[in-house]
Each structure stands twice: as structure tokens, then as C-alpha cells.
């Protein structure tokens, strides 16, 4: 099997963001067919001291190791994918995500996450979001360093 070497992850340009949250709405539409955004969105834009920051999965894949039933896998395109049908809702991935971007909404027990689909990028009227290609090994290095390896 060909293993993905790179993956597209979201890059955020805070200086362009006006905080309209169109990205969150687009995301919750993908995951839950609703425009609610917020806790139903995998991407979150947070306003702090008049500045915006983005919180979203960086596809590092630590959660793959956490899953007891093999519901989390890295797809051919490099993204980390949660198979809702296999998931048994234990929240181990939610609790152990080093940047807390594995999400859980009240809509269902199984978590959800960014799949780099680009819906938020397309929805952003200010071009503040972009999908960029990253080396998976580099992403892993950072996270395993943080985990004390």
C-alpha cells in the first residue's frame, strides 16, 4: 500500500479574518447538515484581545494510536479519518488530542474532526484560509516530542 507522505492542512491568515464565521457554518454543514457552526464545527475561530486564532486538526495522527477499535486511520491522501460506524464513542481521541481539536458535539456520541475538505476555505469571503501541503513525518515529530518520546 502506498503510504501518504504529505497531507493538506489548514493555514490561517489572522490579519485577513473579520470574524464572520462563515467557515464554521460551512463546516457544520459538512458534518451535521446545519449552519449552526460553533460546537458542531471542526474548525473554530476564537477571538481574543481583538485578534483571531484558529483551532483545527493538524492531521498529526496521535489519535490513531489511541483508538481501541481501529476506527481512526490515515487515508491515502494523508488525512486522519474517523469511521463513525466503527467508533464506539470512548472519547479517548478527544481527551488525548494534544491540541484539543478532536471535537465532540451533543448531536451524537462519536466525535468528529477536520478532514481537510476545503469547505471552509471556499466559504471564507476574506481568503483568510488556505489548504497547504505538509510532510506527515514532520507533523508526527512535533507531536511525539510533546508526548515525551
Amino acid at each position: 500500500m502506498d503510504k501518504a507522505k504529505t497531507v493538506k492542512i489548514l493555514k490561517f491568515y489572522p490579519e485577513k479574518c473579520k470574524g464572520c464565521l462563515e467557515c464554521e457554518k460551512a463546516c457544520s454543514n459538512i458534518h451535521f447538515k446545519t449552519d449552526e457552526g460553533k460546537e458542531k464545527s471542526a474548525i473554530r475561530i476564537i477571538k481574543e484581545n481583538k485578534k483571531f486564532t484558529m483551532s483545527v486538526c493538524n492531521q498529526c495522527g496521535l489519535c490513531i494510536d489511541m483508538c481501541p477499535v481501529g476506527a481512526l486511520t490515515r487515508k491515502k491522501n494523508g488525512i486522519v479519518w474517523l469511521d463513525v460506524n466503527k467508533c464506539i464513542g470512548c472519547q479517548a481521541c478527544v481527551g488525548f488530542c494534544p491540541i484539543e481539536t478532536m471535537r465532540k458535539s451533543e448531536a451524537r456520541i462519536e466525535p468528529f474532526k477536520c478532514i481537510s475538505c476545503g469547505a471552509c476555505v471556499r466559504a471564507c469571503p476574506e481568503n483568510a484560509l488556505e489548504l497547504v501541503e505538509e510532510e506527515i513525518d514532520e507533523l508526527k515529530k512535533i507531536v511525539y516530542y510533546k508526548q515525551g518520546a
Partner: protein
Amino acid sequence: MVEGQIPIEEYKTGNTEHKWDLKKIKFAHRTLFSHKYKKRDISRGFANKTLYVNLSKKEIKEKKVTEDMKKKFTGGRGFGLKLLWDSIKPSTRWNSDENELIVSTGPLCGVTQYPGSGKSLCLTISPSTDIICDSNVGGFFGPYLKFAGFDALEIQGKAKDDVVIVIDGEKEEVSIETAPLEETNSHLLSEQLTNLYASEDTDQARQKVSIVSAGKGAENSYWGCLNFSFYDIRRKVCRMKQAGRGGLGSVLRNKKIKAIVVKVKDFDGVSNNPANPDKLAEVGTKLHKEIRDLDRYQCNMRAVGTVHLVEIMDEYDLLPTENYRFGCFPKAPKIYSPEFYKLFTKVIPDGCWHGCTMACAKTVDGFTVMTGPYKGQKVTVDGPEYETCGCGANMSLWDPLWILEFNFYCDTYGLDTISTGTAIAFYMEMYEYGILNKKRCDGLELCFGNAIAALELVHRIAKGDKGEFLSIAGKGIRRVKDWLIDKGWGDKQLIEDCGMESKGLEYSEYVTKESLAMQGGYGLTLKGPQHDEAWLIFMDMVNNAIPTFEDKAEALHYFPMWRTWFGLNGLCKLPWNDVEPANNAETDDPSKVPEHVQNYVEYQNAVTGWNIEKEELILQSERCYNWQRAMNVWMGRGRRKDDWIPYRSMGPVTEMEYKSREERYDKQLIEKLKLSKKELEKKNIKEKIKILYEFRQDQYQKLADAVYFRRGWTPNGVPTPQKMKQLGLDDKKMLDMLKEKINEDEKAGLNVWGGKYTKGEKPPSIHKRYWEKW
């Protein structure tokens, strides 16, 4: 954790592969009797049915779980006690037809969001103790039993030939099938049956099957444990967890049950249909995060499991070495956790139930077996855990590989590592003193440190060796003590003092000489000397936080009740205090871990929809704890005499032990017994041992006095009807029985305090029959 992100398909254990003719094995099965049932949805943690199987009468029926049963017994071990009370007699022994083997779950069992929520509680009348033994165990069986439709499984009677009991949650059918061709030893049997009963040839399907079994050792000893399997999709191995204590596996094999198989169709994170799934996810995620952030600075469970305790116990003189003579040893660093970390396979997650991020269940994959029938094969060894390493220290085995070997064979033979190890350590000490020798041991040279002889003993027991020593050795320390005394070999007092058993069950692996409270934690127990009721050594010995008898009694009330609670719910104790919130030390009562207690209040409410406060958790336990003690009384035990502990657990038995810690003991004689230095100098070691002996024995009796009083019992340790009524337990048969037993004790003059109280000291109550005023 550098080995992270190994794709599931790619990981290889390197184990020896087996090819089974599964068709032939399956074809040899003959269904003896079966029962179709209708599975209903689980409601707020309860399936509301238990399953009853009688192998003698060929009967299978479903019993209803009533609201009254939930109110009084909560679930899990509580349900087990209730089912036993309704089915057995006071004269029932482990091998009686009416003895039952019960596997029970509990309302929180099978929850995936909160770590440590997959425990099964197993109960039976133990061959070692002749009273109820309860043992908790991980693995998938408990959750699957519930998801297949039953809160508990109750097996009575005996089959004629080896059978498997199959609970098929997919077909909604229970069947009893003959099983002539399968292996008996668990590591092979679990693999065969998992493959045989999986719906498809996939890892996902295999993960939906769980097997309970016990091997050849369980057949031929009183140390039989139950192996509960859980299929590991990364290793592609049926791993096992053990319900170790008290000979449950011996009962399984005595009933001619080769295995119990359970299978589920499917399940998800809300299969328990909790009242409040969001709350559940919230509390669970909070704990996951705590483990993520703190475990590696606290217990390091995720990396090495319970083995992290070896170095701590060694440092505090608590690691039992050479049959508990010493608490530390110069060679001990050879079995510290870093040595095992090197051997453990670092594939995560390692929980024995889904969602347990504490993940203490470590394995060594591709371990090359060194002795016995599987010599040369490569296998996965589940463990070792701290207790098994402690057994290594006790037998003076200081090589991690031999500890693994011992661990592997005990598991697959269905032998409890604790009982086996503790007993062999005792035999080794008797060997050292010449009370046993090569001839008396059927040719085994059981000296401390002789790993090959220890393993040979295990193999020969599993083979059913009929040698005089070997047939008695597998029945445990109590029987061997009686045998040695009967033969007139050695000094009776020495034999009684050295053999680490109480109530007929072998001790688990902590040295308690310097902690009176922990002596009570082992002796003043329901099933025997197991540390699952209380672990008070640090609180008592290191921090001196419970100095008075009243303080110790309070701890020996609260902690056994609190720890009982996990067993009522199908939970593991470890996530309670083997990770602690960062600010725990600043709370009012750090030893109780208040924030986690609150988690459990919220957790139980979120599943059951009850609306309870933390005090109610203790009440739930108190009901069951007193019920079990009352049942012990009913069966002729459960009195002060039965709470006897060997002196080895209280103080130095031999001169060598005294000398090894002479300064400590001399100091105590001066400070606690007010001996002057001059007086001390005049005394030889034998005399000093004797003074200490009498003092410590009296301390233990005074502790028992305080504990019995605090628990609401008579001075002879019998739960009072008044206490039972306060707890809402109004079973007439039970209350009448207790009244009768208390009156019997009264006539025999046994309702008196055990301590010798001198001037200025007071027993817990000066009133006779104080409980009648309650």
C-alpha cells in the same frame, strides 16, 4: 511511545502461529441443551435480566432483576451475593453440586467514555476458604454479557463431560455444547474458540467474541483463576485478564466447563442507554485529559502499568522478599519497571476494555518460552503486573525473563500468580529450614531463587502429578501447614507464623510489618488477604495520618466500603487514585481523591438517572459488604478467629529478620514499650522477639475491636441485625440467622473485646450488647 502510529494491518508479534482444523473441532460439538431468548434494549445500565444455567438439571432460565434488587444490591458483586444467597446452603462447599459460579456486570460496566469501565465480578464458594470469594477482572466478557442481554450469569450444577457455554447475542440463543477436541490451556483455547465463534474471518468480528476459561492447573489445584479474553486488533492475539483470587477457575473446571463464550452482534458508545450521555462524555473526557497530562509524572501506568510499584515498594521496605522476611533486596533493581519497559511492546492502546486510557495492561510479544510443554514457542505474555513481580521477589527470582515465564504458565494453566507465588515462597522457606527437603518435595529442590524448580512445580501441578507433596502443594499454604504439622516436621509455631495465608487464602504482595492499619486491611476482610479492600500503608506508616485506633478503624471502614463500590458497578479501581488531579494534595482529604469521588457520583447518575450524593455511594457498598460478612457468618466463619493473620505479616518471626532491622525494632521497644536502654541490653534477641510478638498481637486485637465497632458489628465480628435494618436490609431469614449466631456467641462467651486494656485505655464501648441500643 516512539513506536506510535503502527498501522493496524502491519504490526507483527512474531509469535508462533498455530493452524487449527476448526471444522473438525466444531463438528465434534454436540448441543446438549439450549434456550432461545429475546434481547431487549438495555435501560440506563441494566439489562434487567440475569441468566441461570444448571448443568446437572440441563436447565436454562432467565431471572428478572427487580427494582428492589437494584435498590439493595446496586449491581455487580451485589447481584452476585443476592443470587448466591437465594441458591446455596450454609453447608455448600466449592465442589458441591449447588455451588454457583457467577459472572456479574454492574450498571456502569460496558461504558466506554470513562476509563476502567469494563470489569466483571466473579463469585463462588472458594476451595481455599470455604466462603464466598469475589474477584474482579477486565477483558470484554462482562460488557458483552450485558450487551448480549444479561446483567449476570449464574451457573449451578456440573456437566458430565467437558462443555462450552455459548451465549450468542447475535442469534439470541444460549447453548451448552460438548467440547471434546479443544485445548484446555487458556492461551490456545481462547484462540481456538474466538476463531470458532467469530461471525466472520476478520479482526473486527473476532473482537466481538470473549472467552472465559481456565487451564490444566485450575483442574489440579485450588489456585485456579479465570482467564477473560479480549481480542487485540493490533497484535491479532487473544489477550487475557485474570480473575485470580480464591480458586474460581478450579470451580469452573470442577463443573466440567471448558469455557464460556459470549458474542455480541454490535455495540456502540451508548449501548448502555445512559440517562445522560453528554454528561458521561464530559466527565470521561475530563479524566482522559488528566491521564494525558499527568500520568507520566505520577504513576506512569501508560508506559509500564502497575510494575512501576516495584521500585517504590523496594524503597519503602515493602517489597516482599524471600517469603516476606524482608521488604527490600539488593538485587531488586533488576526487576524495576525500566527493565520491563525494555521488554514491553509499545503499541497503544493497552486497555483491557475500550476507552480505558490508563492502559495498564502491558504485554511482551514474541516471548520465547523456556520450559514445559510450550518450550521454544513464541507467545504473547500479558503482564506481568506488580503482584506477579512481587511473587518473583518473594521466590527470590530476580530475572525479568523468569518472571515472564512464571507469568505465562500461570496464566495459560489457569493458576493465580499471587497464590502460586506466595505459596511457593513459603515452601522455599520451609525448604531452607529443612522442614521440607528434596525427598519430601517429590524431588524438587525448592530453594529460594531456583526458578527451574519453581516452574517444574507449576508444570507438575498442571499435569496432575500425584506425588504426596505435589497433590497437597497445589491446595495452598493452609493445607500444607496442616500437612507439615501432621507429619511432625518442624516447629508448629514457626510453620503457622511463616505461612502467609489468612482464612485459607494466600497473601498478596505487600509487607505489612510496620503498618498496623494494613495488617487490618489484609485480616479484617471478607474473602481473605487481598489488598483490594484497603491499601493504607503510606497513610499509616509513612505519613502517620491515622495514629489512633479510632483513626485506623475509620480508614478501615471508609476505604473497604469505597473500594467495594467499584465492584458493585463493574468498574476498575485504578482510575480513582492511580492518577490524581493536579491540585489533589491541596484538598481537604487527598487520600480520598475528592474530585474523582465527585466524578463517580456524576457518572453513576449519568448512567442510571438516579439522583444520589456521595454519601449514598458508601451506603450502597455498606449494604453489600455487611451482607457478604453475614453470609460468611451463616457459613460458619466471619468471626474474630477467622480474621486471624500470621505473625509474619505483623513482625519479625525469626532472629534473622529481627537482626536485619534491629535498630528499628530496638527503638520501638524503647519508645512504645518503655523499656530502658539497660533493660534492652540485658535481653537476647529471642526475648526481644517475644516482647514485640505479644505487643503486636495485642495491637492487632485492639484494632479489630475498633474496626468491628465502627462497622456496626459485635465484638466477635458479627454484623448486628440493628445495623442491617439501618441499611434497609430486612430479609427475615438473614436477620433471624444473625440473632441466633450472636446468641450462640454470647453463650460461648465470645462477645468480648479481644485487646488487653490496661489503665488509661478504653475499649470501643463499655456497654454489653451495645448494638441493641441502636
